[in-house]
């Protein structure tokens, strides 16, 4: 090729490319952590949105577990390659919220890019978790869940218990378990996921309306101090050690505890506490027995308990650094995502909470709860009472590290190295170092 021909070809090519981009749809990148069946459901939502209009294409991509996709996003941001939307777990909220220049808060995005967005449409306990002290919603609720109690009805019957009455208090959990053990209906009373963290400390504090930390559990500022070594936590952790020794409780590992689910599925443990989002998995795997549902237990002699439980799961965060036209698409997609139909379908398919009131009402109208008894336990539990300062959620940076500390300290209690009080005091001390470190890095 000689020179003029080559430049002509180049010009033609450039023209072709520019005209094709003019017609192309704006791409919205959405990074998420929903693997397996949940991932397929999520991709279907994106595909439906893409089919519903022709201006934007939402491209979902799986980036590993919650920790991984958060770290990937941060690395991408540092390299200037961040996606528009990313799904971040609730314990990442503090970190995301503090990253002021990196995040485009949802309330602002919705105001700037013209949607009639109404934060009041969302469940208060869900928005509470992701709203700053001025009442601005920072991220878009998507998949929120809360821990509930699952139980083996066959084991209850075999032990002479009423198969339709789950325990409401820890005293009953102990008594029912003992009865189950005595009748040899199961080898262990109960097992629970996130024993030291989400279930056994965070929700425990919320349900009994005691503070997890100062300054509204960290909502009021980075200088919050952890205070989860309160008598209620000490009481539960002491009981756990005692119950483990007597076979009432079985430990299934730190965090979500990989061994919890098999213990319940196999009939080894008669009760199981885990996220409401585990519902589909529990129903699919619990072979040979019927599953009952109940709320998380509280200590019966504590006035005002149960207050309300707090959520887990994840929300969608918008990252800064993209074109305005792209944010129009993000806003349109978020509006679509929070529509009652999409939310209700997602809620019913997965066991996650309906994040808007309208989706909850729609599910009621559709007769979903009547057809699936127990599927509304989670939403009833988080709506027991209007959330208080102690029960609206938690806001700490480096929260994953704080959770690791709690897991370690509970292990020390269960293997007899420490008393519950010593372990919780030490967890508070180590946790506060982490909180101070985060405060110093985000001043």
């Amino acid at each position, binding site marked *: 090729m000689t020179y003029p021909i080559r430049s002509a070809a180049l010009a033609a090519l450039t023209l072709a490319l520019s005209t094709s981009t003019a017609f192309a749809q704006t791409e919205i990148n959405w990074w998420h952590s929903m693997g397996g069946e949940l991932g397929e459901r999520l991709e279907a939502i994106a595909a439906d949105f893409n089919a519903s209009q022709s201006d934007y294409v939402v491209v979902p991509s799986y980036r590993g577990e919650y920790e991984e996709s958060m770290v990937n996003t*941060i690395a991408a941001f540092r390299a200037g390659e961040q996606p528009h939307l990313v799904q971040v777990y609730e314990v990442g909220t503090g970190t995301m919220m503090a*990253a002021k*220049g990196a995040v485009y808060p949802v309330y602002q995005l919705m105001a700037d890019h013209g949607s009639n967005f109404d934060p009041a449409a969302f469940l208060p306990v869900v928005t509470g978790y992701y709203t700053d002290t001025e009442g601005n919603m920072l991220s878009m609720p998507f998949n929120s869940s809360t821990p509930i109690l699952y139980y083996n009805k066959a084991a209850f019957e075999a032990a002479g218990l009423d198969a339709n009455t789950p325990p409401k208090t820890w005293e009953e959990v102990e008594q029912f378990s003992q009865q189950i053990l005595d009748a040899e209906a199961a080898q262990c009373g109960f097992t629970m996921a996130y024993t030291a963290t989400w279930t056994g400390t965070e929700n425990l504090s919320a349900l009994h309306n005691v503070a997890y930390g100062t300054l509204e559990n960290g909502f009021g500022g980075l200088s919050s101090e952890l205070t989860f070594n309160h008598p209620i936590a000490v009481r539960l952790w002491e009981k756990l050690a005692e119950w483990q020794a007597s076979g009432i409780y079985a*430990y*299934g590992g730190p965090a979500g505890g990989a*061994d919890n689910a098999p213990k319940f599925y196999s009939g080894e443990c008669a009760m199981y506490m885990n996220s409401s989002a585990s519902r589909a998995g529990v129903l699919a795997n619990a072979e040979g027995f019927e599953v009952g549902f109940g709320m998380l237990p509280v200590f019966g002699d504590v006035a005002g308990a149960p207050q309300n439980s707090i959520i887990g799961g994840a929300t969608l965060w918008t990252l800064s650094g993209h074109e305005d036209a792209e944010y129009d698409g993000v806003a349109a997609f978020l509006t679509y995502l929070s529509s009652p139909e999409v939310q209700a379908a997602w809620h019913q398919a997965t066991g996650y909470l309906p994040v808007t009131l309208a989706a909850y009402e729609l599910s009621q109208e559709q007769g979903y709860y009547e057809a699936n008894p127990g599927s509304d336990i989670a939403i009833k539990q988080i709506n027991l009472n209007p959330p208080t300062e102690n029960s609206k959620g938690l806001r700490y940076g480096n929260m994953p*590290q704080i959770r*690791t500390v709690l897991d*370690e300290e509970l292990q020390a209690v269960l293997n007899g190295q420490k008393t519950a009080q010593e372990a919780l005091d030490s967890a508070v001390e180590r946790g506060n170092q982490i909180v101070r*470190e985060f405060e110093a890095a985000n001043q």
Partner: protein
Amino acid sequence: MDTKRTVFPSKGLPYLLVAPQLAITLIFFIWPASQAVKSSFERQDPFGLSTQFVGLTHYLRLFQDPLYLTSIGRTALFAVAVTAISMGVALLLAVAVSRVIRTANAYTTMLVWPYAVAPVVAGMLFWFLFNSATGHLAYLLRYFGVVWNANLNGDHAMILVILAASWKQISYNFLFFLAGMQSVPQSLTEAAAIDGAGPLKRFWTIVFPLLSPTTFFLFIVNVNYVMFDTFGIIAATTNGGPNQATNVLVYKVYSDGFIGLNLGSSSAQSVVLMAFVILLTIVQFRYVERRVQY
């Protein structure tokens, strides 16, 4: 030692010849390492929006942290155990295979397989075998009266990661030992046999001393392996638990940096780890290598 010396006619040529190697070392080792050193003196938020210089704060805090100090001791135990087990078993297997005449190749192939397994997969494998709820070996142990629970018993967890890490490294050591043994001249062992030396005597007085360069090399490689490559195994089995019982230095670097997003402290830890390994390698070359016969 260095008796072979090549004399280059021009001064530039030798530099040109080592230039590619130097460039690779600079780009892939020195530069990232210097970045780690730099960020160990800084405090940065995860997104890199603000950075402050904090001097030696991270290091001072590390060495005042009793958990970090215990982690050093734990790492030493882990390193010694894995190196000893994986080298010992590999040597034993190499001796056994070198005595087999006809099917040696088949055995070699089979013994090398585990090396192709990724550390995380090896970890998962052992996690399944020793899982207190569903593992076959845990079940077997219960039959013999051992209540195996790596979820709560720190010693059990440590044994689990040591076994997984050693199993993974045995193949590599085996291959080198076998090759080393095959290079021992047969005339030597035959002569010893004629003189009336039994197999054990022949091994310890002839074969093993001649294997010393291989052993020395493997020793350094294994220590490096334990220090840097085992985090996948720990991530897949115990996550450093229970109550930090298996939280070795390299896993702590990963969990503080990757999960905790505390880049400054994580960098400081990796610098310390790097210093440890450099120091260890120097000691090995200065004091252990003297006993090696080339």
